[in-house]
């Protein structure tokens, strides 16, 4: 089944206190306007949203909420996967036997103090082995980063360069949380420690937001060349090597195989930088460089806006913001915009192949999608 992207849309990711209905409506409206179809033509929908006890909406059955919003009685399914929900929803949507499918990611994370949000996100880890031992989400990624540093000599400075790059890109993205905010390398290096070796700028920021994409069998200018989802054991300490995230490896391999291309053919990529180390490990696990040599890419500027393969021109989770479920969909919005040459200051020169990489938890669920600009 060949899938094409018709239209995309997203809200600005921010701290604004808006209801999820409101944000969903905006994102869906934009996506419809960007496509050539009317809402009547939508045949099915896939929504990704986390069940959260800390937002003031306490709404479990999001499918019916969407049905009520769209005023349609079509099949609507919900596919959450914590931070990887957006990608998982898109992957599921591509496989449904319906023509025009709406993919929506929406989350209202910020209705509570940071402490509660930290606990909520911690609940993506194993209950008795990790959560009880204080392994909050920054901590588990910090332990992975430490292993990588011990094994391959990666330094904290390398990680902070990634944060700097993403903030530089994000300052040019009107939809990003950090739009218009220039952050210096000094400020990044001197930020307070969150969980050694990570400081505040190694960690992505929680925001509210929504993003939507409409896909279809009808031919358009953006073809979904590769679409793969793979999983890995929930807790990194259980895996053979904490610095190899098998979900990324397997999903990447499968996606490249489907597209019949190699990593070096990718022109622009949106990688999951929930923490700086995750982007660095993704360079290696996706095959853009050998295992252990991820730091080289960032040191050489390979992944900068003016580099050989710009990564996270949107600002990534770091500077765009990370509303959990919408992130995976927002990555697809960015790649679509890049392939359609709509990115203004952060436009990459004539990209033909784009890749999105979305991870749930600490590598538990991973999706890799490859998009190609075709004549259309």
């Amino acid at each position: 089944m060949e899938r094409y992207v018709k239209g995309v849309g997203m809200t600005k990711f921010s701290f604004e206190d808006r209801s999820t209905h409101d944000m969903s409506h905006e994102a869906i409206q934009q996506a419809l306007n960007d496509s050539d179809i009317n809402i009547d033509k939508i045949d099915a929908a896939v929504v990704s949203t986390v069940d959260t006890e800390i937002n003031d909406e306490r709404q479990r059955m999001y499918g019916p909420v969407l049905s009520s919003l769209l005023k349609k009685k079509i099949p609507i399914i919900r596919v959450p996967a914590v931070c990887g929900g957006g990608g998982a929803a898109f992957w599921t949507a591509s496989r449904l036997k319906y023509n025009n499918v709406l993919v929506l990611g929406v989350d209202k994370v910020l209705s509570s103090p940071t402490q509660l949000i930290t606990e909520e996100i911690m609940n993506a880890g194993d209950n008795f082995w990790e959560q009880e031992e204080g392994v909050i989400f920054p901590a588990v990624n910090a332990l992975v980063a430490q292993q990588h540093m011990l094994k391959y000599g990666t330094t904290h400075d390398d990680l902070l360069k990634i944060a700097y790059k993403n903030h530089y890109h994000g300052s040019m993205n009107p939809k990003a949380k950090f739009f218009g905010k220039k952050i210096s390398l000094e400020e990044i290096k001197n930020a307070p420690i969150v969980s050694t070796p990570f400081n505040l700028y190694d960690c992505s920021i929680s925001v509210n937001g929504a993003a939507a994409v409409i896909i279809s069998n009808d031919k358009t200018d953006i073809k979904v060349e590769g679409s793969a989802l793979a999983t890995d054991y929930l807790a990194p300490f259980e895996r053979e090597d904490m610095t190899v995230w098998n979900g990324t490896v397997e999903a990447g391999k499968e996606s490249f195989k489907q597209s019949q291309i190699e990593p070096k053919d990718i022109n622009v990529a949106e990688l999951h930088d929930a923490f700086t180390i995750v982007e660095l490990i993704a360079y290696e696990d996706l095959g853009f460089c050998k295992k252990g040599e991820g730091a080289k890419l960032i040191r050489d500027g390979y992944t900068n806006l003016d580099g050989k393969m710009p990564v996270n021109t949107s600002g990534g989770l770091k500077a765009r913001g990370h509303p959990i479920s919408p992130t995976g969909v927002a990555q697809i919005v960015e790649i679509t915009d890049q392939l359609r040459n709509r990115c203004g200051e952060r436009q990459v020169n004539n990209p033909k192949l784009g890749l999105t990489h979305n991870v749930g938890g600490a590598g538990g669920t991973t999706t890799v999608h490859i998009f190609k600009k075709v004549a259309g």
Partner: protein
Amino acid sequence: MTKTIRWICEKCNKKWIHPIETCLYCNRKIIKQIGTKLKVIGYTKVNIPCPPHPLVPYNVLMLEDEYGNRMPKKVIKDYKIGDIYEDKPDSSENTISIVKIKYDFYEAVKEALELIGDIDVSENTRILIKPNLSIPGYAYTGICTNPKILNALIQYLLDKGAKKENITIAEQSFFVPLEKIGKKSGIDNIIKKFNVNYVDISKTEFEEKQEREFTFEVSKIVNDFDLIFNVPAIKTDMLLGIDGAFENLTRFLSKKTFDELAKDVKKAVMALSVLPNMFPKFITIGDASIGMQGNGPAQYGEPGFYNMIFAARNPVVHDKAVQEILCLRKLPYVELAGKLSLGENDISKINFVGNELDALRRDVKQPIGSKLIKRD
């Protein structure tokens, strides 16, 4: 000693971090692998708090055992990479061991006892186990001692050489016939499984004992045993503060004594503080596997989900430690008992083994009562 646990298929050698009965691939039996020689291979110092882990900074260590299995552990002390991690067992009166249950109750009970210097048991040792079965409730509500704890304790004693004929479970309820509670809580199944003795204390003989101005009618059953285990369910209590080691002893008294004490709360607290003197030495195993928080100890409380087991040779030390960990107000009967030299009530002089006090402290729902509870 903290230990790692893995469940391994005897044929294909796949390892699980969760207990399973047979291998999904081979259909063969599973063997348990316990690792006790732990080395620090990574650590992170966490600076951001969340409700279950409010005291920062704390460290999360990544430990690796002699088989290459890893597990994270929360500590306050600082460690370097390469350090050996070990808990030092201590059989002194001022020691309390605290073990977090990693899916395996047997290993948790075993470790809790080993950390307070273990116990000596032979085929002639007469053992008495006193759980809390005072109010009927399903095991998962935390209102009675968890049958899984009793299951683990009895199995451990049998493995150490005790004979089932010499093991007795004794309890009484002042509210409801004991049979009703045994059935609902699931304790009945445990007793049937091991075929141990089961005694209703209300049907035993009582003798008068004097302590200061108090006269207690104490069940004579306590004189017939070599080893006594006091196994309370750890619950918050609107009157007493907590139901711990002390409260569980009250059901060794006759209903007459209990009713008299219940008439005057102030007197009851003073009587409670000298109660341990009525009994020979006993070991307290605090069942905080589920436990209760909020307006306990009965139907107005809610499950605590503490997931811990305590073990102590002195009840004052036990209840004091519980009060400090759950951040409750000082317990009057514990402070008084300490003043009367029944045990150590100065928290700085109590030796915590297995986990550090500040690594365990968290706020729980306090037993302050509510306007919604109808009082008669």
